[in-house]
């Protein structure tokens, strides 16, 4: 049987209700912690802040986006354990536009530089956007995905910040971030 994938639709402005209820102002009765909120579950010296903002074609902050990240753990694996969840989910703050993840820096793999997968949905985004974040203080020279991005590879590399890294994702315009068809 050959089926077609269900077509995508925008997550809309109220995605928080289903995916980040605290941002919606909604505390579900009897609910546990919001899924994806806490990635680092034990004290670790390697903890970093990853601070993300999203800007639209007018260079305005997108304050209603939902961002998920997915990455390797310290050993390079992708199976969560009691110390670390490889998956994180945060909304951009409704007033500041900032999404802050507490995570760890993943290691390089056989042929790829350390990287974090990023997936963004929001009102006006019809199909979730996939991009990556690389680190400015790593050896990125031989990474095959950055090589594919060519002259736009810089849009995938975060900046060093006091407690970790900061990165702006541009949906549109001269600094438009590279988004992938995977």
């Amino acid at each position, binding site marked *: 049987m050959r089926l077609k994938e269900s077509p995508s639709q925008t997550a*809309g402005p109220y995605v928080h209700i289903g995916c980040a209820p605290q941002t919606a102002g909604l505390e579900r009765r009897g609910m546990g912690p919001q899924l994806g909120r806490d990635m680092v579950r034990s004290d670790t010296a390697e903890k970093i802040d990853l601070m993300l903002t999203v800007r639209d074609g007018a260079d305005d902050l997108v304050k209603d986006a939902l961002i998920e990240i997915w990455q390797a753990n310290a050993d390079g694996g992708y199976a969560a354990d009691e110390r670390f969840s490889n998956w994180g989910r945060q909304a951009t703050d409704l007033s500041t536009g900032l999404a802050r993840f507490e995570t760890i820096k993943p290691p390089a793999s056989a042929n790829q530089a350390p990287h974090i997968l990023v997936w963004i949905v929001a009102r006006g985004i*019809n199909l979730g956007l996939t991009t990556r974040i690389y680190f400015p203080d790593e050896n990125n020279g031989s990474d095959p995905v950055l090589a594919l991005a060519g002259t736009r590879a810089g849009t995938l590399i975060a900046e060093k910040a006091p407690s970790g890294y900061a990165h702006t994702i541009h949906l549109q315009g001269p600094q438009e971030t590279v988004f992938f068809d995977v």
Partner: protein
Amino acid sequence: MTEQAFKPRDLSWHPPALYPDYRSTHLRAPQQQLLHMPQTKTELTGPTFGQADLSPLDDDLILNYAASGQMAQGPRIIVHGKLLDEDGRPVPGKLIEVWQANAGGRYRHVNDGYLAPLDDNFGGCGRCLSGDDGSYSFRTILPGPYPWPNGGNNWRPAHIHFSVFGDGFAQRLITQMYFEGDPHIPLCPIVQAIPDDHAIDRLVARLDMERTIPMDIRAYRFDIVLRGRNATIFENQMEGT
């Protein structure tokens, strides 16, 4: 172990990033083509969820926000179906999250100021895991249509938002479910951004009298399809050959 690659996504089946009649896409649609990249372990893997992540009433929107002894207002419905891949295989054990407006068309969200009243007993969110055969179900109420600021007299059809996880992040999907017979479906720019009528039809749930419980609750059926796997040598080749 080698992860099996996912089939290419047919981008012509999905709504384009820029759809002028849907005004919010104007400044949020990337202008560059998506850059094709090979799937690596990062894209082929994804988070896993278990019953420990859920609470008992998560799949019952009629009760999960209601005060004790009370329930959400509106026509009672079961929404159910199967989570499948493009080869028709069940996708078991995956997290499905839903959110929706109440019966009056109002969301319980700090940013929704529509004049329809909030329902104290309705939160509008739920979640569940697909079963071994890919099946899932929720109990909820029929959401109302509502107007939205898009530069005209635009009303959203009644709908429920779905967020679905697959085996790998490349399967991650957010979509919306509509209700058969809703006259707003052909009028809605968000729906009509989907270029193919057959694709739109896939998002329209059917009244299902088989699952309807007499004198209690009606049922709607909605199947969800995630990207399939490529038929590679890893699938067909016996180990050691």
